[in-house]
């Protein structure tokens, strides 16, 4: 096995490691935006419920 060949496998392994980590971080960020969206929707509907109960006689 040539040294260049070995280095190619080595570089591939380390690149794939950081690719995997990046994919996982992307997944975390996606979850973060989903939660932020849910929270803002919840705040809007809570505000709607509060204003609805205030307008009741």
């Amino acid at each position, binding site marked *: 096995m040539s040294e260049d060949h070995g280095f190619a*496998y080595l570089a591939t392994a380390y690149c794939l490691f950081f690719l995997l980590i990046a994919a996982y971080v992307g997944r975390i960020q996606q979850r973060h935006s989903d939660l932020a969206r*849910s929270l803002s929707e*919840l705040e809007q509907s809570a505000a709607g419920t509060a204003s609805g109960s205030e307008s009741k006689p």
Partner: protein
Amino acid sequence: MTASAAPATTNSTTTVRHTGLSVAVAVSMVAALLAVFLYAPTERQMGAVQRIFYFHVSSALTAGTAYFFVFVGSIGYLVHRHDRWDRFAGIAAELGILFSLFVLISGPLWAKPIWGVYWRWEPRLTTMLITFTTYVAYAMVRAYGEPGERTQRFAAVVGVIAFVNVPLVHYAVHLWAADQQLHPPKIDLAPGMAQTKYLCHAAFALLFVYFMRLRLRQERLAARIDRLRLRLAEQA
């Protein structure tokens, strides 16, 4: 401290701790990479490709730790029946799968130039693959099961049973006959190699803690959102 200042102080302390951990993860990962490529001596027989060893072994160790946490979380859930144990187990499994996947990717990349093939059905590789698929099954139970106590209980049972595989992976090199083995039972490392290995272990431990904290915070928030949604639906 006034009552209104308390939450703000807690938030800023959490942010500082989170930032500190992010910096520690980044610094340790850069240090680990520098040690792997510049500090560790080149192995005489295998050459450069042996440097896969450092991240490969650290990933395997981190995955094993994560699976141990799944076991602890599952036992905790079965005893206390509290959601936080279930969340803990679920997130640990997610991270265990992530690090195991890298072990199963980097292993064949190391094996090809050394053994001449990407894969051999030898004890450690086979037990590692079985462990990985078992935890993927565990994640599928959690993802596709009907949300609720029944799925959580079933997942916890799977989480406990799945852990049987983990010591098997570790002791596979001793449990089966030597002529079936390709992994060495014991590795003697030069001082520079051993130091690099421990540095990588530390960097991976920090990365694991960082992801674990981040995901636990997210899932706690998700649970709070669900409770609020339920309360709003009841009020409407």
